[in-house]
């Protein structure tokens, strides 16, 4: 089962190597990993998708790294998750129209047109990306580049009472 974990780390040289090395050494399985800056230049955020039954040890071992400041597991529904991909598919003249139609439904952007291929860019929910990929598979996927997942928690503010959303 995949778990999405956000790791706030000090923006220090080698911090990615420390995290990756810990995962390898402890036998934890990284499904995807994305690193980038945060609003605070002293900090970076890693979004790690981890394959495994249970995250307690993963989280505790992450905290053991001196440069780890905060670790949060985004339980399903609690976080907003996004990926971006670029996919090049075979598109002979007789198939072009239906491929473009499918792409339009997914709001995929056409970023390159070749003699016999089309290349789409699609960003969004990882599930939607997977669905689009399945739809393109029969035509023949020539090339695929996919980012790691990034995620952020939802800003749910309760108004004193649990579960009640504050009126906007």
């Amino acid at each position, binding site marked *: 089962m995949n778990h999405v974990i956000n790791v706030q*780390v*000090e923006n220090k*040289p*080698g911090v990615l*190597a*420390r995290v990756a*090395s*810990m995962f390898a*050494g402890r036998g934890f399985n990284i499904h995807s990993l994305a690193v980038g800056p945060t609003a605070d230049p002293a900090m970076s955020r890693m979004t790690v998708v981890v394959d495994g039954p249970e995250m*307690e*040890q993963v989280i*505790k*071992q992450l*905290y*053991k*790294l*001196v*440069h*780890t*400041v*905060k670790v949060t597991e985004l339980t399903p529904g609690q976080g907003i998750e996004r990926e971006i991909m670029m996919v090049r598919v075979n598109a002979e003249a007789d198939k072009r129209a239906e491929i473009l139609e499918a792409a339009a439904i997914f709001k995929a952007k056409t970023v390159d047109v070749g003699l016999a291929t089309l290349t789409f860019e699609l960003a969004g929910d990882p599930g939607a990306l997977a669905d689009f990929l399945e739809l393109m598979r029969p035509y023949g996927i020539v090339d695929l580049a996919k980012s790691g997942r990034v995620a952020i928690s939802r800003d749910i503010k309760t108004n004193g009472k649990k579960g009640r959303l504050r009126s906007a």
Partner: protein
Amino acid sequence: MSNTMTGAQALIHALESQGVDIVFGVPGGAILPAYDPLLDSPIRHVLARHEQGAGHMASGYAHATGRVGVMVATSGPGATNLITPLQDCYMDSIPVVAITGQVATHSIGNDAFQEAHTWGISMPATKHNYLVTDAADIPEVVNEAFHLASTGRPGPVLIDLPKDVLAATMNWHDPKEIKLPGYRPSVKGHPLQVKAAIDMILESEQPVLYTGGGVIRAGGAAELRAFAELADLPVVTTLMARGAMPDSHPLCLGMSGMHGSYTATTAIQRSDLLVTIGARFDDRVTGEVKSFAPDAKIIHVDVDPAEIGKVRKADVPIVGDAKAILGQLIEVMEKKLGGKRSPERTDWHEQIAEWQRDYPLKFDQDPEGPIQQQYVISELHRLTGGDAIVVAGVGQHQMWASQFWGFERPNTWINSGGLGTMGYAVPAAVGAKAGKPDEVVFAIDGDGCFQMTMQELITASVEGIPAKIAVMNNGSLGMVKQWQKLFYHERFSATDLTNHTPDYVKLAEAMGCVGIRAERPADVVPALEKALAINDKPVVVDFVCDPDAMVFPMVVAGGSNDDVIMSMTDLPDPAGPQPEDVI
């Protein structure tokens, strides 16, 4: 005085500021700049004969004194030779700082002479590590390194210093306040958890205090004893906790696990509550995890949150320092008891006493037969009154030393527990003796271990560090041979060392030590008396021992702690665990 100095001078100045009195190392090209100001420093440098020796010396020093041990090596092979001691210290939570030279910053990554990616290689073997690229950072880095090594769960920290950084000029400044937003080790335990623990202890009928090296690291031995007495709890001291509770104390059951006493192992197995303090449910303690202490609730006190729940789920987890939390437990227990005695658990104590009567640790020394290692250890204990620091390597001799030496105080048992580093004893004994010159430091070593690091006896005699070494010469890699006997149908592949080559007495003399040999049981006491009387030189005593002796009790690796094998006569049947099942 001008504050302008080189990075190397800043390094030495920073070490002095940390109160470092001794460092263990070997110089070389990249670290040369740091060795120059060392000549003018009050810090003593002990020149090891191999960097691994320097590392274990720093570890032995830290074990014996409780202070941070410092090891120094050059780049490349110097640094890679430190990896074993670093990993050893990591597994056993020993506070050490390693200083390594590195090729100049402009050469890094160019496969320069004696270049190794020390930062990357040492990362998984250290609690934290640094590659310093600006001499101006040295005061902060050294201060942080000592802070990290000695606080929270102690451990090794490495500082890699390129030659040009050591040679560069900087302005000395006192280190700025340490800012580590991700590093805030807990000291005090959560009061509600402490209360919950006390309630659980008061309700339990068959509790055991299961203690680990964390108690010794935290300096909590006095609190452990006070709490055990107050709450009337039998205490198991694991391999790393030997000495945390006096073995002579009626509540102390000694070591449990693979080669633990029947009583300690079985008391844990039958307990209804394990009060775990600074221990980590190591596989040598638990055996098969699913059958380990099956009816016990678990209170788990540890300074490292990742240890809690790693192997066994805790019913009451308490994160913090073992000494501080033992203090809290005492306070809350006293309040609860209000002057009354803790509940009497007569049946439990009687049961334990019965096990102790029926299954004692024992050995037979035939006066005409070969020397038994247990006999040497027992006689050494008798002759010293137990007043010595004992250092062990890894193997049969280590287990017998743990079983048969009655430990009375903490920091008097130094061994490689987690990593199981053969060759640990000689250099660790040198480090311990350097840190505690007024104590008798006696290494109990195996002949296999001894041959791995014995050249550090040259360091000992040249530097005037008179540690003593008992070589338990059984002519084989005894523990490995024991496993071959038990699990590989007595096919003794590559475990024969022979007990006549080298000649340990001549070897000792060649290294500037006194060499003594004992070949018969009657030689043992005179040899030990002679060794104990020599205080100006290191001594090596070659005890020619029984080549076939085996360590019992034993729980087969991966087997259940319910099945303690007491002797060859109750060995598991050949259809039992097969070699591929055991580690």
